[in-house]
């Protein structure tokens, strides 16, 4: 796959690689697993990564409940919260240690 890496712009990374990885705070403490990446701006001016959604466990995606907005019927919502333990937290991108 090395030829494929050559024509990527320098330092490119895929969202699939980031999601599911453990997230560490500035102090090196483990915050949980990256469930999603938050992007701000718009297509013209560029979509900049401004934060991550951190879940307690590597739940990646759970029917969309990893987002803040209430979506499902209350029973599913409650079940999702139980399964995902406490609320999913949103952490700003610059608070993360990017060595990982």
């Amino acid at each position, binding site marked *: 796959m090395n030829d494929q890496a050559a024509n990527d712009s320098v330092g490119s990374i895929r969202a699939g690689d980031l999601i599911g990885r453990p997230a560490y705070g500035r102090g090196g403490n483990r915050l949980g697993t990256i469930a999603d990446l938050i992007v701000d701006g718009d297509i013209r001016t560029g979509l900049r990564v401004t934060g991550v959604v951190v879940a307690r466990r590597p739940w990646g995606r759970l029917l*969309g409940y990893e987002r803040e*907005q209430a979506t499902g019927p209350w029973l*599913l919502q409650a079940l999702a919260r139980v399964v995902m333990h406490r609320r999913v937290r949103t952490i700003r991108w610059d608070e993360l240690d990017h060595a990982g």
Partner: protein
Amino acid sequence: MKRLLGVTLGILTAIGGFVDIGDIVANSEIGARFGTALFWVLPVGVIGICVYAEMCGRVAAHAGRPVFDLVRERLGPRVGLANLSGSYLVTLMTLAAEIGGVALAVQLLSGIDYVLWVPAVAVALWLGLWRLRFETLERLFGLTGLALVVLLVALIAGDTPWSQLAGQALDPVPTEGEDWNSYWYFAIALFASAMTPYEVFFFSSGGVEEHWTRKDLLLARANAFIGFPLGGLLAFGFMGTAAVFFYPNGISVSTLGQAVLPAGLVLGKIGLACAILGVFAATFGAAVETGLSSGYTVAQYFGWGWGKYVPPRRAARFHTVVLLSILASVALLLTMIDPIQLTEYTLILSAVVLPLTYLPILVVANDRDYLGDRVNGKLANFFGMVYLVVIVVAAVAAIPLMIVTGGGQ
């Protein structure tokens, strides 16, 4: 012209989709073994499919996304792939059972063994899907499938002990000689025959492909709320006649010939011919739907082009999947597995797959990003939740019951 097509699509989806080999087998066998003690499952199943068809019709019309596209989106690639393999396997087995059902119906008309008809039916099905305009298939099988009403006529015309049937229906307990395990096994089979997943794939994909506007949605909703109960009534024809003719004699039904026999006994040759023709149309219509749905599930998961109106050249992968699914179904039938037995196992396996199909629909139907102000109201959510719990319980209990009852022996 558009209105007639809309109504016809509704009728086909109801008759072709509702009454298929699964309903014919489940209703006949249950009528013979339990009389009408399991009648209550039919309205429960019909309401369930109406609730979820309405939801995914709304999602198709407002978000323009079909079921399997949502499944991958909401469950992620890995769980979505597991869901795809389960649903595709069940749809493939249903397709084989439908083709087997058509072959059995032709055997009753020709006297020649059904296995010889299987390849011929498969070729006819593939040609229909490949060359015929979808509306032509729709009208042909939707309206011919109405011939199944002859079983209800046989029930009404014959000297049917209605009070006895009603009494038993209101006393929903295992009949003499049956235990609770087999009672619930067949209840799940009947429930799964009413809520078969491919009906939802077909209904929602039709909505997306025809770009249902709000007006079309009203029409589709009316078709579902008229069409599915109509299909349920036709399916009851098999249960009622089996309860009158086979149950009192302690005879259990295991062949298609037995299922249509009452129509012949009450209405003679014409009644029998009508019933067989009706079975042929319902199973062929269902084979068209399951054939397309096998392509829909795979194509929508991977984001390929798909659709019954798209010429094969412009959706090569979709049409190849449909072709391979038909070939795989023929191969499965040529192993001489009895189509009726195959149908029973397919119903139980589809019960196991149901939660994976209906859960994403319920979630997306509540998401404002997709539907804006068209999200589920209190009523839709109440029924949606109640049925989801019922579906999960049925899914968990299906396989153990199948083992404990030895496949309902």
